[in-house]
């Protein structure tokens, strides 16, 4: 099992917060690029395929760059 485990991980000790922000940034870039290409907004799945990531990772990444409402004034005011 130790070996499976070593095999499964590529020794990534980067903090999730940073990695999620990177992914979110790439997702937003992919969205712009694909929207221009296809004349319509890509779905989450299409972006996930483009980035070669599971859909859930893209969703969680997007959450990392969303602003909380309960701490700050809403952006709409």
């Amino acid at each position, binding site marked *: 099992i130790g070996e499976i485990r070593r095999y499964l991980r590529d020794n990534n000790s980067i903090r999730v917060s940073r990695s999620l922000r990177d992914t979110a940034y790439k997702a*937003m870039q992919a*969205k712009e690029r694909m929207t221009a290409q296809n004349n319509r907004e*890509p779905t*989450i799945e299409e972006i996930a395929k483009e980035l070669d990531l599971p859909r859930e990772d893209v969703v969680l990444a997007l959450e990392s760059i*969303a602003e909380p409402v309960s701490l700050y004034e809403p952006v709409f005011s």
Partner: protein
Amino acid sequence: MMKPTNEMAVSFLSCSANESFGRAAVAAFAAQLDPTIDELSDIKTAVSEAVTNCIVHAYRDTLGVIYITCKLYEDGRLSIRIRDKGCGIEDVEKAMQPLFTTSENEERAGLGFAVMESFMDKLRVTSKPGKGTTVTMYKTIKRRQAEKNT
């Protein structure tokens, strides 16, 4: 009303740190419908407003539990129910009017319900003073099968 094809329930404490968790949980569930980033962010914005209301109004100076239920229907409709057992709302109709707020001194804009209403297809609010409030929101995510064939 149709039977849901999938559903989930999540509950968590009414602290600001969990606003993001509640939103992420709904987003993770809604992701099944394969929305666009924009559609997902509309849903998340509406959920944020509702959860924030539970934190800052319903459980104002206390810590309570926020309950979210999501249901998915065959036609791509998503329902999101956000419930608290907090102070409740005396006059729901009035509370839902744009710019109405009970916390004037703070930087709250009184636009929470207006935002939920405009970002979602439908909004229903029921409340009992002293018992709590239930906000139910609906949004249909268009099926993309058709587009995939092009």
